[in-house]
């Protein structure tokens, strides 16, 4: 375990930013995984900021003791500002601001405009509903639930990108399991050698160079979870992280899915009489003609 405070102390002392390697050097006896976990936590709370300098990733301390009340604004603005401040980096929807502030729509729009021009707040398009905007304080980095994180480009979910990554993650796990099995030494050994952490997979994906954007460990965890959801891998808790392993299913294709009726989209409308019936069914005819 690495305390977040340790990391924060280190970072505070380096206002120009600190790299991963610097941190490792400063706390040599901590495990890399633990450091990564602590850093991730800090990034989440917003007390750390990640930026790039000459192709190097650096962390910087960010003071999160918030700006208090917007100076030079009237009462209504203060109320609205407070409401938006409370919402944090997840932002708040205009209708909710209206309910909480009891302002009418025209008033509220005016206040929001004013706050926006003063750069106290900003409107961010949320990915969860395409036409929905949420408001948050101007200098906040929107939460990944709002931007969608690495998977979104201009509010568009990059489905194919996710699919490719998911396939590659599975490939990595399968190859690892395959190799472990080939090495022999019994099933237990093989199983234990087939486990991988998100960090292992992250390295593999980075080395592949298929991603234009830089992916975090958390991003990889999300992708790995899709592999788990597809029933191709198993996730086990170990320490405060997860271990992943490729698994096999129990069943070969069952009889029902090999038939046309078992997967027929209009089965509920098919009966022994009526237009849709097994005597004339085209699906069945086609299937019967297949060799």
């Amino acid at each position: 375990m690495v305390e977040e405070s340790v990391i924060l102390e280190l970072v505070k002392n380096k206002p120009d930013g600190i790299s991963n390697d610097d941190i490792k050097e400063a706390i040599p006896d901590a495990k890399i995984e633990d450091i990564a976990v602590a850093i991730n936590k800090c990034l989440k709370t917003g007390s750390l900021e990640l930026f790039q300098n000459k192709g190097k990733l650096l962390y910087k301390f960010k003071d999160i003791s918030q700006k208090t009340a917007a100076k030079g604004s009237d009462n209504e603005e203060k109320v609205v500002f407070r409401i938006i401040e409370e919402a944090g980096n997840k932002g708040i929807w205009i209708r909710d601001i209206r309910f909480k502030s009891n302002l009418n729509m025209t008033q509220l729009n005016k206040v929001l405009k004013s706050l926006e021009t003063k750069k106290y707040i900003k409107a961010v398009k949320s990915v969860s509903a395409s036409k929905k905007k949420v408001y948050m304080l101007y200098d906040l980095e929107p939460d990944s639930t709002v931007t969608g994180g690495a998977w979104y480009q201009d509010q568009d979910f990059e489905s194919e990108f996710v699919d490719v990554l998911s396939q590659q993650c599975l490939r990595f796990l399968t190859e690892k399991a395959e190799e472990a099995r080939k090495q022999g030494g019994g099933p237990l050994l093989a199983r234990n050698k087939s486990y991988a952490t998100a960090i292992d997979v992250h390295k593999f994906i980075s080395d592949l160079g298929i991603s234009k954007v830089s992916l975090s460990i958390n991003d990889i965890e999300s992708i790995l979870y899709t592999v788990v959801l597809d029933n191709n891998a198993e996730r086990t808790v170990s320490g405060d992280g997860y271990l992943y392993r490729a698994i096999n299913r129990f069943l070969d294709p069952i009889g029902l899915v090999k038939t046309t009726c078992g997967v027929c989209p209009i089965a509920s409308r098919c009966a022994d009489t009526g237009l849709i019936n097994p005597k004339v069914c085209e699906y069945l005819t086609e299937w019967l003609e297949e060799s």
Partner: protein
Amino acid sequence: MSSQVGKVISLILQERFGPVIEKVGTFLFQYGSNPLLYIKRTTDLPLGKVKEALCVLIKHRLAIFKPNKNENIANYSLCIENILLMMRFPKYLSLIKKKFGDEPEMMIEELLQNGYLTTSEIILRVAEKLKCDVNNLPNVRDKFVSLIIAKYINRLPLPSDEEKPVPIFGTNETELFTLPKIDMKKLAQAYANIIPKDDLGDNVFWVVNYDRFHQDMRDKCLVDAFIKRFDENAGEFLLEIRDIVRKKVVYPNLVTFFDQYVTVIEQDSSQIIRKFGEASGGSFQIHLKEAYTQLAWELVEQVILEKFDSKAARIFRLVKLKKFVEPDQIQQLAMIPSKEAKKLSYLLLEENFLKLQELKKPQSNTGPNKSFTLFYIDLESIVRNLLELCYKTLFNAMTRKSHERFVNKRIIDKKQRVDTIAMGMQAQGATEEQLADIEEMITPPEKEMLDKIDKKMKKLNIEELEIDGTIFLLQMYLKYQ
């Protein structure tokens, strides 16, 4: 029982026993237990025909009778399960053949075709079929006895009270597998036709014990599943903890790594095998409920995957793992674009794979978020729906089969006629040439046509068997709930 099952049953009866029995069976399915005269009145069949039909059904264990309240009249009812099991006969036969060989297979076949038979009937029929020597009779008898010992067949309970107008049958479990006394000398005489078979005075009847076959099938499914998930050794491991016999020779890897297999299988997320105690290596239990629940989940996932797509299956498994999921969480956790996620989850909802529960938020009862909805899964109801779908599929396959037969009736009949003639001529010692001439009555295009029909029939027959496999898995899940 559902109407879908009713339709399948009437097709099975029609296919195997013809229209009269089908009519009586369908009546009993629809109206339940009924006395003879009611059946006659409603079906509008002559009394003799109804009696005949009931006899056949009872002989094949497809119907039973019990005394009515006044004890003088019998009520007849249909054994729905047993009718459906007729689809499974080919599986029983191949199972017994693999395990015991040819003679026991023939014995089971005789029983399946006839319902019940006496000890001597079974032994003599099989011996006759094999044309075996009288000295070989004890051999056949031993095969027969081994089937009783292994519990693949059991005695048909006899009336416990024959005084009553409608006999009541005993169900003395312990006597079901008692070995019969077989007088080999008399049996040999009957075989050689020295004494009539009726003189054997055999009054013990035997029937096939379906449950025993299902046990084997149940275990086989699990062994196959283990082989697929782990490897051959793990499958063997499962067999071993069931049989408690170690077959060290065949699976050397299992012996070397026995303890490792124990750990891996025990720790598997499926939780199918549990270990108890540590004494002398501990003992194991196969958790059948857990096992068949796992298989049922996977089965449902397969259906969703094939019926919809991999994203739908992913959403389904997400809800499975989380138990309750908010619609908004789906796109994020399953990493599917929100529109697609919405479309798929509502499609799953529409087809009853997902269910929706609405919850009121405790504090706010105004505003847009006053309640929220959660997706969840009711596996048992899905399994029941899929079982329905299986019966529907069976019905469709069988309907199609009889339809194909119907539209090709002319050519099929012709083929049959030609075959009969050819057979007759062969018996009269016709020459090759003459036979070939007969064969030529079927023209090449007709032959092609017949081959095509034949292929279709085979395909549909295989489909029926495979669907029955799915039905078996689903039934096992329901059985262990």
